[in-house]
């Protein structure tokens, strides 16, 4: 794409056509945005309602949730609880998690209408019409902002309707506004920096992961540790600091709005300084020769960048997990809570073991996301017609698909192992038993892999049999996550909760392992993958 650097006409502001682009974008997202907004609002309202139904009074709620309140693993995941009110207990899990989902929605919407369009060349088509240079970015930012506002308003109204404190519900809205708008800004900037959709994803999601980890460290730091300040450096930390149903710090909105304004302004400055189709970061010249000899080697070569990013991210996660582990024992000072935690873990593990077990199950969900991303690349290869060029060589479909499956299996195992080895080194040095800690954590990490394989196999089956619905693999992962998180709370039937492969994982380290569930998961994964590959062999390509 040769981008002619035609300077924006001095006369206009480059916004011509924004309305039509916005209308087009809104039309394309007419399902995604309302359904997501509704889903997120329902997530808050229904889980709050379920909590009210579960606990007849405040005392029983406090007692019932004591383990949760005291477990740093959960504090790392959900943020500290705002207060000991029943409203606060009822929304503990939804404030931060929902905010992260909202940030993801903002990211998806903004990316879709900026860099994705540009990479596909459609923006060029539109840009050749009567559309100003800044119109596409403006439309994307407006639509992202509208999606965030819609979700926030719906959530606040529904929360008040189910009986949550109105002032606190508004604060919840402020919290989500801060997190959602921040990623409208982050994604707008990322789309200008890089010249590919994947690069935009890496920057935006990388920023989300860093923001999450930074506030996890801050939120779990001890009472007078200077690390507590870290939570104020992360937009996700701000979301938690709003403290809905507790202190209701509305003023934190100022931080979020300021960041949003600054990032959007920066995105427009960057936009004015680059050519259509390119990024601010230059696309460098590369090698003129390639050592790749097989389709598998090509798949590995193409996955390299993603894999490096994930290994780094999981190593950082390992450091965070390992350092938090040290404070777990001190977090839980009352023997009653310790007993309860043990009861929850089911086995006679230590509290630190239960902490690691909980976190590793979350890490496994992340590794499943990596596996889906790598497997669904097959679909991308097919829709871009690059697969056609490959299959016109002696490469066989089955071999090509197996190459992707192997990479996904290996990559998910590698990131899990990297995180536990790092966590084991950090925590092991803390307690003076590096070898033992690393060994136990490696075993625990390996025990989560069969669940990852099942998710991976669902993606393979979808791609092989119903390629148009490959994206549903992501929906399956989210459903598994929600079943695990809210299955008990919403009192869902056991068979439904059991659909999630993660339900069947042993509580390791510390717990006992039965071979049956792990073998069962592995067999299910093998059967689904085989069915997917068999379907791919028989169907038309393209």
């Amino acid at each position, binding site marked *: 794409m040769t981008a002619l650097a035609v300077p924006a006409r001095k006369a206009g502001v480059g916004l011509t056509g924004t309305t039509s682009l916005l209308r087009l974008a809104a039309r394309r997202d007419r399902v995604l945005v309302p359904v997501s907004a509704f889903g997120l609002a329902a997530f808050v309202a229904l889980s709050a309602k379920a909590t009210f139904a579960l606990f007849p009074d405040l005392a029983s709620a406090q007692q019932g949730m004591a383990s949760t309140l005291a477990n740093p693993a959960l504090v790392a995941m959900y943020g500290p609880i705002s207060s000991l009110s029943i409203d606060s207990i009822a929304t503990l899990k939804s404030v931060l998690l929902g905010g992260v989902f909202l940030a993801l929605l903002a990211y998806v919407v903004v990316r879709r209408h900026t860099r994705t369009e540009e990479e596909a060349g459609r923006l060029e088509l539109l840009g050749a019409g009567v559309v100003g240079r800044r119109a596409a970015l403006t439309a994307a930012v407006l639509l992202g902002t509208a999606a965030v506002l819609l979700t926030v308003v719906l959530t606040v109204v529904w929360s008040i309707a189910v009986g949550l404190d109105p002032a606190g519900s508004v604060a919840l809205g402020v919290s989500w506004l801060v997190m959602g708008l921040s990623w409208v800004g982050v994604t707008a900037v990322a789309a200008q920096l890089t010249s590919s959709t994947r690069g935009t994803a890496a920057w935006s999601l990388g920023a989300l992961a860093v923001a999450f980890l930074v506030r996890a460290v801050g939120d779990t730091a001890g009472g007078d540790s200077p690390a507590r300040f870290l939570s104020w450096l992360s937009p996700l930390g701000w979301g938690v600091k709003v403290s809905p149903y507790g202190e209701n710090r509305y003023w934190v909105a100022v931080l979020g709005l300021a960041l949003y304004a600054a990032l959007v302004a920066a995105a427009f400055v960057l936009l004015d300084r680059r050519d259509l189709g390119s990024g601010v970061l230059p696309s460098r*010249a590369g*090698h003129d*020769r*390639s050592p790749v000899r097989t*389709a598998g080697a090509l798949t590995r070569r193409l996955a390299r*960048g993603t894999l490096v990013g994930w290994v780094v991210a999981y190593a950082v996660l390992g450091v965070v997990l390992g350092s938090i582990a040290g404070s777990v024992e001190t977090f839980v000072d009352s023997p009653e809570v310790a007993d309860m935690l043990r009861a929850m873990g089911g086995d006679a593990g230590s509290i630190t073991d239960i902490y690691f077990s909980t976190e590793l199950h979350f890490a496994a969900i992340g590794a499943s996301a990596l596996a889906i991303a790598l497997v669904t690349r097959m679909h991308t290869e097919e829709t871009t*017609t690059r697969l056609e060029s490959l299959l016109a*060589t*002696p490469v066989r479909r089955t071999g090509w698909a197996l190459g992707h499956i192997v990479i996904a299996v290996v990559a998910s195992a590698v990131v899990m192992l990297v995180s536990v080895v790092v966590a084991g080194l950090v925590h092991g040095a803390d307690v003076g038993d590096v070898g033992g800690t690393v060994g136990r954590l490696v075993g625990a990490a390996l025990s989560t892999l069969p669940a990852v394989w099942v998710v991976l196999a669902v993606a393979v089956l979808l791609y092989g049999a119903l390629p148009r619905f490959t994206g549903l693999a992501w929906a399956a992962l989210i459903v598994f996550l929600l079943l695990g998180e809210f299955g008990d709370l919403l009192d869902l039937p056991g068979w439904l909760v059991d659909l999630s492969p993660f339900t069947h994982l042993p509580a390791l380290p510390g717990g006992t392992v039965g071979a049956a569930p792990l073998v069962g998961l592995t067999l299910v994964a093998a059967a689904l993958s085989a069915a997917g590959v068999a379907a791919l062999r028989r169907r038309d390509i393209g």
Partner: protein
Amino acid sequence: MTSAIQVHDLRKTFGHTVALDGLDLDVATGEIHGFLGPNGAGKSTTIRILLGLLRADGGSATLLGGDPWHEVETLHRRLAYVPGDVALWPNLTGGEVIDILARLRGGVDEKRRASMLERFDLDPTKKGRSYSKGNRQKVALVAALSSDVELLLLDEPTSGLDPLMEAVFRDVVHEFRQGGGTVLLSSHILSEVEQVCDRVSIIRAGVNVESGTLTDLRHLSRTTVRATLARPVDPALLTGLPGVGDVVVSGDRVTCTVGGDDLGRLLEVLGTHGITALTSAPPTLEELFMDQYRTTSTATS
């Protein structure tokens, strides 16, 4: 004469759309075969069935003596394919893609690779995302021509190339044929087909409507004759001649069309009236093409 590609009564439907409706195609070994047809005629569908990407619903297709659906591995070592819209991996360079595709096919002919890069004037160090349409096309062409194959399947391979590069392409394809190779060239650029191809097949709505050498096809089609005569001629005399039609006489000028086989007889008759000026235009491929479309569209409607 052996056939590199033999397709008989090939059928393929996508949902309710009939893409191929009993297509026949015969490409002889060692020839450059033009594959012509309007958009949606089924050219790409045929090529994709020949590549084993699509499974035919009916009929038979034989490629280099093998079954394109089952013998992918052995057949694909012997052929190369260039699509009309080349998609490259955004973070691999053109040089890397050329190496990868050629190696997967069985090996890179280093001398050919270097000479093709030079002739097509392609910079192999640029990343896939930064190539223009024409340059992406060149990457696929160089990749196809850098390995040692006997058959080229080219699906509108020159879309986006400038005229200079089209000329290079024509030379390269000729050389390939001189080396014993066979080419199936689907194209919209009629002048290209006219200059390059030994035989052509014109397909429409999934059916082969005409196959043959250009000379054959010209015979089937009508030549336009314009003459100025010394002595006026009776239009009825001309209309009565075999193979002559569209007769218009105005004063001393005569215009009519005639089938290839009846041209001589027409000229004899015109000669008796004293020809003072004569033009005879054999149909261009474009006229053949249009002619086929018109006749078949009236035949089917």
